[in-house]
């Protein structure tokens, strides 16, 4: 898929909580959004006042082709992302996109479950919507530390059945995604994005039950183009760039044996 470097205008900026923000962005030059696949990501230049030099990789959360809007869900994880979620309508950001490989669509006969933890729910919305558009039926299992950390639940519920867990039990079942009762529902394909310990736990269950499983990694990156070789993950093929050969990997490609 062809890559572009474009200025985007901030059209909407919604602060979901002190730590999370939602940005609706439109190409400043009036052009249409480029083709983007679910699971791909973009690299955003942080506002200059953050003092951050390198771009920050952010999942594509949703693409509204009708209104020509790219949606990013951003967690405040440091100076760069803190400045991003403080952007206001009228501000401009420079974005390199689309990057990485994206998720593999399930078969019509599959029963897919999309599992997200924390801000890792971000790429699952666009993916779920894309599945629905293709007549596939996604279900979501979304986890967070607490009710206030659950993100965009209403949007997911519009796309498919949505199961919730919180570690403190303030919403949905108490515990982790890996002990939610829905997890035993006969899924044939699992897609997962979230903290690495969560993805490893999900991968272990998928392996035990022989369910095909893809995970989306977020290793630290510089270029986003497969040039600097900073973001590598050790795989059955050796060290490969998460930015260009990922961020989505089938777990049978990863050396996650624990």
């Amino acid at each position, binding site marked *: 898929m*062809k*890559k*572009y*470097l474009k200025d985007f205008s901030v059209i909407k900026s919604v602060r979901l909580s002190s730590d999370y923000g939602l940005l609706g962005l439109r190409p400043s030059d009036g052009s249409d959004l480029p083709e983007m696949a679910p699971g791909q990501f973009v690299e955003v*230049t942080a506002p200059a006042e953050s*003092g*951050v*030099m*390198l*771009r920050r990789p952010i999942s594509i959360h949703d693409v509204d082709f009708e209104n020509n809007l790219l949606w990013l869900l951003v967690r405040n994880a440091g100076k760069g992302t803190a400045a991003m979620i403080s952007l206001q309508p009228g501000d401009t950001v*420079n974005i*390199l996109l689309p990057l990485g490989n994206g998720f593999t669509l399930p078969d019509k006969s599959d029963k897919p479950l999309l599992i997200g933890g924390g801000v890792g729910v971000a790429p699952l919305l666009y993916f779920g919507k894309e599945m629905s558009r293709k007549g596939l039926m996604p279900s979501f299992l979304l986890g967070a530390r607490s009710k206030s950390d659950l993100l965009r639940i209403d949007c997911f519920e519009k796309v498919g059945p949505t199961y919730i867990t919180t570690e403190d039990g303030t919403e949905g079942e108490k515990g982790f995604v890996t002990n939610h009762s829905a997890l035993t529902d006969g899924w044939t394909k699992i897609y997962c994005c979230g903290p690495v310990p969560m993805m490893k736990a999900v991968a272990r269950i998928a392996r035990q039950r022989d369910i095909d499983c893809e995970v989306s990694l977020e*290793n*630290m*990156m*510089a*270029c*986003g*183009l*497969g*040039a*600097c*070789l*900073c*973001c*590598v*993950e*050790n795989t059955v093929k*050796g*060290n490969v760039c998460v930015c*260009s050969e990922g961020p989505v990997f089938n777990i049978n490609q990863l050396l996650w044996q624990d």
Partner: protein
Amino acid sequence: MARLDVEIGNLKLKNPVLTASGTFGYGEEFADLIDLNRLGGFIVKGTTLNPREGNPYPRMAETPSGMLNAVGLQNKGVDYFIDNIYPRIKDIDSKIIVNVSGASTGDYVEVCEKLATLSAIEAVEINISCPNVKQGGMAFGTSCDGAASITKAVRKAYPKTLIVKLSPNVTDIASIACAVENEGADSVSLINTLMGMAIDAERQRPRLSTITGGLSGPAVKPVALRMVWQVAHAVKIPVIGLGGITNGTDAIEFMLAGARAVQIGTANFIDPTVTMKVIDEIDNYCQRHGVNDINEIVGII
């Protein structure tokens, strides 16, 4: 438009803007974003005799105005380059230079002999300055004897343009430059990264798997500029300057300090189109200053 073409030994560049090894992949990664044919040249990722997996993750940490890396020369080896990558990039109308690294003198020689057979590769850049590998690398580049012995051996085996990339992690970089000049190097490029370190205080752990790594980016520019100026005054061969260049003005500063050409490195990660802007800005500078030929300003300080 001013004349921007420069010569590095027998290597004729249409303009003085190159990309630094390890920051530009094999060029093709940037093909959607820039016109590769406009570059003076590009220096492909450090290539070794045998495939290397590099160092474990994490290999990168951002620091104020810079970054540390500890990639450790991950590459698929020179044979893979020749069979799989070279055919894809050889027709780009821009000079392709291969950065060569090794653990022994024999490694460097063998890789350069193989590369010498490729018609679209008119130059190699010998990396005796990588701070991120245990064997070879910087060990050769931190003494005059080590630098001289590698240069001598490669010179015998490689007839085309031979550039030696110098380490800044030395007491007297000019003496190392003189040592490689005496053994027949056609050019020196500097600086490779400065050895550095970053610590995560909350986790009480180093940020890199290797603990130390190489610092690059705008943070190193004043050091690089000083070293280019020192070396340019010590040798007669052309000097290629790099270290923290992010725009045309930075590039001009290196040329004023004595660089015949420049390399853009870390800035490619910040703005993958930066090289095009640097070329335009150098031309614009020449017009503003009545410079008809970029070579006129090289080393005037």
